[in-house]
């Protein structure tokens, strides 16, 4: 009970977890105080997720000790973990899509009146839980009818409904817009004031400096350090995460920008974006900045031939492109890297090699006979260039870490040797190491003359990589900023419509 007085909500003492061939968590000690927000950072594969899965009761064969509120507990099943007040909020939503918010929120504890569901009480309980996270939605809507960020908040409400004393949040902001992130932070502060211990996992270091009290860095399954947030800098954290010092994050080379390659005029898809016009040149990286819902991805999908435009004209190297299909756009050299890696980007069950060769099956075939051997050197080269780990084309993609999966996704489009590459959130949710590799690969691509359209919510990324940035707001291009004038602040203001020049492109 001694620990209780000093307020340790969670104490993991020298815990380890082995998988065949690797030690995912190696002799780690980790403590969180009640009422503390404790950030847990590390590259993908550093062992953060395994450590938290241990806490969620996913393993029955970990070694070491776990104490909750000073009492030693065995967390061998998710039910036990829930019983001890551990709440998990995962990056991937666990909500059942076709059923209502009420049923998701109150699963397993729906209020009853005799044998029947007490609908009025269920409604009001659900409303109350939603209000906790600042949502005012009709609780009878099915999950699939609300937006992804609303679903994320519903998920949080659901976990809070179980009354946890320790709450683990794994990348909770990856699907949220800026305002929603602010709302989430307010919720976290409230939880903190109620004495709940919050473990906050994020790749997004600025968030950690905003919200965390202490930070623990993991690397290769080991704990590197735990520090009060006031005593470290961003650079120090990155250095601890990657194990080497990160010099200049965005090193800008001389670029040779050539003649116009892509010309878009008056392009509209009704309801999504309107009268969009721009030009992009050879070797140029054109950033597209906007809040979620501004029409960025919809524009990308039209350019990639996945959707049809209602109006307007697209020209590639002076010739009009009327792509009805993605296959058609691809054959002309327009490639699109989706923001949805798991469903649209990769066939997770197949191998790295198979995924890389997917867009070029026809090019690797003579007649209709496919030659894997013809694609093998290219796959090997890309695996090397992007430093994909493990460097084995025969590995199943689904078993790779998120960062490496994202590299495979990029490799797939590099393999298609595009003239125009549209990147939609190319580094969302990946670790610093993978991010640096992906960035240098994008720069190399631009140097080689490819036109890159970069859609990103990561402002430093946009500022660092783009030659120009177009601001998109509510379906219109509102403003353009050259390399000199754009900064994180100016982009943010413009995307929110605070920086004049409304309407004109």
């Amino acid at each position, binding site marked *: 009970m001694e620990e209780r007085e000093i307020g340790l909500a969670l104490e993991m003492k020298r815990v380890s977890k082995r998988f065949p061939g690797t030690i995912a968590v190696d002799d780690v000690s980790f403590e969180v105080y009640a009422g503390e927000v404790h950030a847990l950072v590390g590259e993908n594969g550093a062992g953060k997720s395994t450590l938290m899965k241990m806490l969620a009761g996913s393993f029955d064969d970990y070694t070491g000790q776990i104490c909750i509120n000073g009492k030693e507990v065995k967390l061998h099943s998710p039910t036990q973990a829930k019983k001890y007040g551990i709440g998990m909020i995962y990056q991937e939503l666990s909500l059942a899509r076709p059923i209502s918010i009420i049923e998701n929120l109150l699963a397993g504890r729906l209020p009853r009146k005799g044998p029947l569901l007490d609908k009025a009480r269920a409604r009001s309980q659900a409303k109350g839980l939603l209000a906790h996270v600042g949502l005012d939605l009709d609780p009878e809507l099915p999950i699939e009818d609300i937006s992804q960020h609303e679903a994320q908040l519903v998920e949080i409400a659901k976990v809070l409904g179980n009354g946890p004393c320790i709450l683990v949040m794994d990348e909770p902001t990856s699907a949220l817009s800026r305002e929603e992130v602010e709302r989430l932070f307010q919720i976290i502060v409230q939880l903190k004031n109620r004495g709940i211990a919050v473990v906050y996992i994020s790749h997004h270091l600025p968030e950690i400096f905003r919200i965390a009290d202490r930070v623990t860095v993991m690397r290769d399954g080991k704990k590197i350090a735990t520090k009060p947030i006031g005593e470290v800098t961003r650079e120090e954290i990155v250095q601890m995460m990657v194990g080497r010092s990160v010099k200049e994050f965005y090193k800008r080379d001389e670029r040779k920008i050539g003649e116009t390659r892509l010309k878009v005029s008056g392009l509209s898809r009704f309801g999504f974006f309107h009268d969009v016009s721009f030009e992009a040149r050879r070797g140029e990286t054109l950033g597209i900045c906007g809040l979620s819902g501004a029409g960025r991805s919809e524009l990308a999908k039209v350019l990639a031939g996945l959707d049809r435009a209602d109006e307007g004209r697209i020209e590639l190297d002076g010739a009009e492109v009327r792509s009805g*299909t993605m*296959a058609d756009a691809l054959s002309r050299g327009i490639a699109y890297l989706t923001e949805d890696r798991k469903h*649209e980007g990769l066939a997770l*069950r*197949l*191998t790295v090699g198979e995924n890389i060769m997917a867009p070029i099956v026809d090019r690797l*075939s003579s007649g209709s006979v*496919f030659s894997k051997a013809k694609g093998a050197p290219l796959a090997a080269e890309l695996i090397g260039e992007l430093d994909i780990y493990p460097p084995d084309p025969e590995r199943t993609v689904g078993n790779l870490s998120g960062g490496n999966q994202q590299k495979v996704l990029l490799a797939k489009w590099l393999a298609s040797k595009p003239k125009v590459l549209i990147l939609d959130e190319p580094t969302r949710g990946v670790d610093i190491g993978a991010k640096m590799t992906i960035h240098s690969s994008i720069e190399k691509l631009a140097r080689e003359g490819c036109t890159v359209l970069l859609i990103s919510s990561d402002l430093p990324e946009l500022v660092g990589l783009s030659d120009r940035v177009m601001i998109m707001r509510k379906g219109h291009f509102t403003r353009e900023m050259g390399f000199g004038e754009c900064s994180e602040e100016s982009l943010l203001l413009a995307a929110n419509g605070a920086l004049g020049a409304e309407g004109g492109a």
Partner: protein
Amino acid sequence: MADDRSLGSSSVGRLVSAAGVYGIAALFLAVGALLQATGIIRGFLTIQNMLNIVDAAALVGIVAVGMAFVTYSGHFADMSVPTTMGFTGYVCIELLRYGFIPAVIVALAIGLLIGLMNGFVVGKLKANPIIWTLAVNYVTMGVIRLIWVNKQIYPDMRGSGQKAVELFDNIYRLRFFNLIGLPVVMLLVLVVAGQFVMTKTSFGVKLKLTGSSLRAAKFSGISVERVITTAFVLTALTATIAGLAVTSLSRVGAWYNGAGYDFKAVTAIVIGGMTLAGGRGSILGVLGGSLIIGLLNNVLTLLGVGTFSQDMIRGAIFIVVVGINAKSLRSLGRDDA
């Protein structure tokens, strides 16, 4: 032996499981021999009976090899196979009076049209494959009964029809070296061709991508509609071939000629190691699965087990195999279907 995961990390494991199918077939053979040795059944280990087994396996196998493309594409099965077989059989018999070749060509053309329609509706309009093909099966059945007013039909033997009927009879009865029937030869040709198409052609690679993740395939610039349509066309064509063979065997156009081949083929496919989730399995495995179905029927028949009980046993085996398959995938952490 070539196998479908030649690009995959677990190719050795796959090879073992493909070989496993033939192990099970050998086991059935041994059980049959044992039953004969102990006097429970008679006439199992005769050349004639072995030929019966292979002939029956050939008919199931021809359907299964085609349908395997639909399964591999992640669209489970084509339930319109039974009436495709029946309908094309009727048409062929009806048209034999105009000559053998025209009759077969028209039958194949009808099969092709059914396949194109299924492929378009499932691939392009995204209908549920099971429900749609089941509906097509019933509609085709209605068409058959409407046209032939519920009658079985016999070939017209008059005049020049005679020669055509002889040729038609031979589809099932022609035997090479007095042993190997034409359906068996067709099956082997289809297996070799199917295995090649699935593993070595650009269509096969696209089919695997489509079966593994339809959206990822689409977002890789693959025309998934075309891939799915091709899979349904291949199924309908092999069903037509099997339909002609069955009709040739019975010498009569009858609505029930293809009955049961849908489920027999799916069972052969899953026993052969192809998963219903799509993107995994091989044609060589499906051949093994068809052999097992042939052996099973034969042993059960010799044991005096009735048709209905046989259906029950096949159903039970199907459930067990699909269950084991799902469980082993889950334990490998691969069940993302």
